[in-house]
């Protein structure tokens, strides 16, 4: 039960991070996790155990599409690409997140 609630909390933000990471170009799972860690300056560690279920879920929801390609090292890898619906979803979630953090920030400033 406990595990479930932590996962739920992560899910929303992880989805947003994945969508954002895919905004510029298609990537495989490993690259997504590396990109998020790099950009967040190692603050956000993406747990592989949540990353792949999240990718499969986003694909199932129709926001990202997957196809097999060749990685930079010449190995077969599964590349994920943001589609139109995904872009819309990213915009929506990013907005929500901005409003959310702004609200939290205001509360913290004033309290």
């Amino acid at each position: 039960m406990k595990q479930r609630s932590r996962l739920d909390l992560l899910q929303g933000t992880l989805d947003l991070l994945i969508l954002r990471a895919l905004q510029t170009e298609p990537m495989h799972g490993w690259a997504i996790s590396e990109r998020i860690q790099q950009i967040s300056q190692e603050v956000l560690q993406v747990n592989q155990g949540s990353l792949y279920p999240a990718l499969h879920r986003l694909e199932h929801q129709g926001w990202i599409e997957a196809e097999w390609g060749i990685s930079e090292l010449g190995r077969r890898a599964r590349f994920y690409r943001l589609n139109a619906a995904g872009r819309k979803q990213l915009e929506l979630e990013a907005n929500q997140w901005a409003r959310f953090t702004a609200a939290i920030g205001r509360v913290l400033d004033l309290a």
Partner: protein
Amino acid sequence: METELEEELQFHVDMAVRKQIAAGMRPVEARREVSKRFGGVEQVKEECRDMRGLRWMETILQDVRYALSGFGRTPGFALTVVATIALGLGLNTALFTIFNAYVLQPLRVSDPDRLYQFTWTNRNLQGHEFSWREFQEFQKQNPAFADVAAFHRVSFSRVEGHLMLGHLVTGNYFSMLGVSALRGRTLLPEDAEVPGSAPVAVLSADAWSKKFARDPNIIGKQIPIHGRRVQIVGVAQDGFRGISEVPLDFWVPVTLAPQLDEEASLFGPTQPERLTVVGRLRRDLTLRQAEGALTAWAQRHTADRPEAARATRAILRSKATTIPLEPEIVAAAVPVFLAFGMVLLIACANVANMMLARAMARQREIGIRLAMGAGRPRLIRQLLTESIVLAVPAGAAGFAISGQSIRWGQWLILNTIPSGYLEFFTVIPLQPDARVFCMMVAAAVLSALLFGIAPAIQATRSNVMQAARGEFTTDFRPARLRSALIVGQVTVSVLFLICAAVLIRVNDRMQRLDVGLQTRGVLELNLQDRFRARALQEVNSDPDVETIAGASKFPFGGYLPRVPVAAGQGSEQFPAGYLYASPAYFQIFRLPILRGRNFTPEEATAGAAVAILSEATAARLWPGHDALGQSLRIQANPLQPHSLRDVRQGPPTYSSVAIIGIARDAVNGWVGDGPDQTCIYLPTTALAPGNVVFARVRGDTKVAERRLDTMLTASSPGALDQIHPMNEVLAAQLYPFRALYWTSSALGGLALLLTLSGIYGVLSYVVTQRRKEIGIRMALGARPGAVAAMVLRQSLRFALAGAAIGGTAALGLLRVVASQIDMKMFGSFDWVGIGAGLLLAVAASTAAAWLPSRRAAGIEPVSTLRCD
């Protein structure tokens, strides 16, 4: 799909390892580090599959495959389960098929849902039938129907050796129902314009194929109905059997009523109330509005009648199905469904116990799967899938069993019913349709859940830690559930056995009942009044006919009509049964007149004011005194002709009769009531219209029956409606009791069998479970006898608990039944039957425990203890 997921995750792991190595870690360490951080690859895969939403399908397929392979390894178990459930399902499906055909399947008419029968009740809640004039007025003023038709039945008539039943209908009957013709035409309004118009008839498609062998030249054929020649003008569309409970063979215009009816003409001055009115409700009215409008009409229409004959409320009965789904019908059907449902329930309890035992045997497997990380819901789902996998073939087999048992039941009836009554036994076809199929599937799934869910929950309850250590017994105690199931089973079978025993004894009492009338060598004849005199003459002149008698009613079937009587001036009135009988009635049936004398021929012809009383009647009217020579006051109530409607000779018109004889008690009324409580014999002759005729013949009764039949059919066709040996009349009246006896015995036997196998299974299992304990006991010096007694005691505990609950329930049930049915021969309280049922259940449970107890006694302590 699966390999892709594997490859994707492997790629990630490899990349992570590479990164660690690049950061300066040794390959071995790097791998360990990565796999530690990554967690269980299998779990991630499982979650990925979950996310894709396709998982449930895969799981189900997987579970089904798993279940099938499991049952493949234990075919005996699977077969037993399938057979047990199939039996329960089959019986219930058969019952539902019959219920469906009569109560749920819409009639084959257009828009059956708007079809209603209209009647009204008076303040005594008596229903009403319409006279011709009343119907015509209603048709003109009718405030609620788009179209109304009327009909009434033509009594059974013999046509070319077949019994045929039909309705006299108004000309718009077929157009109102929207029924078309398969051959020729249906009846038209022109056919029923004026009384006595051209005699035409429409056959049902069933009658055409069964009674006329699909004769291609049927149109234009003349058939005699009650001796009147009627021309067939058409065959109604397939599947249309009229709108009454009994399937019909033909329809004739209502204007033929004077020719086909024996009684006062429908169109004559007396205006008899005989018509049933059926109509199609107007679309703009709700049922309630229509009832309101009809109530107002009926009250207005009857306002000038005597108080008791005034309408109080209009009644609309749906005619959408053969039998409307009314509260009374449901109330009658529920106990039957409960009885059959209980057999299914026992079957489920049995299988639940077997599944429980099997789940216990699989504790190691289940424990290991739990330890490997399988979720409990997942395991429960898998165990339930196993139940469903068993329920599907059980459902299919049940479907086959239901079809077979219906066919077998019909065969049984056809082969046991007295032959002269075969043609009365017409049933509407019992084809299972989509509704039956859906009910079957629902019942199969429901029973799968019933027998599967408790074992599934119980079996997965074990603790992972204990399972891993190999301990399965400590935390696993389905004993209570198992005992509850067994006690429940015994309870139900005790209930069944007691009811069966009581019914068997009722039947036994019925079969051994002394009816007081000697039926051997007596024939019963129903004659048309038009031919009566001539037919009687012919019968009388037959060399093998000894005597002829007449009576207003044949013995054994139907109640005697009643009339209020009093022993003398000022004494208390009570309703007593009466029967018009000719003097020879007493001779023919060897019914002795104990004191006094028989009617003289003159008294019989004149209908004199004399009476012979049955012994019981005399004792009831003049207790302690001699009834002979007394006079009996008869109070005919003109406002109560309803109960007497079927008797053409109503209660006597005179107000007092002289008692001239006392006859021995006999069964003249319904056989289910035993010897008549009261019977007043009044004089009549065989010649009087409406009387049933009896003939005592020499030699073989069947031969005489055939000869008289051929003779009368040749000389005056249509004169003889029915002819039966009195033996068969009695047998036909006793037949329902035999049928009830078979049904209850079969259900009781089945319940007992299921319970026996249940007790046997559970005790065998318990003995196997407790091998070690028993072995230790025996090693410590317990004698085999004591061990066997221990097992028997356990069985006896089940049996006694079940017997106590079931016995109490049966007592209550019998009390309710006895208070509900009006049947003297049912008896008040049958302690013998109840005791026999209880004893049988307890004895059978003990017998079922015998084999397991022998096995327990035969356990070898040494080999058992070495076992682990």
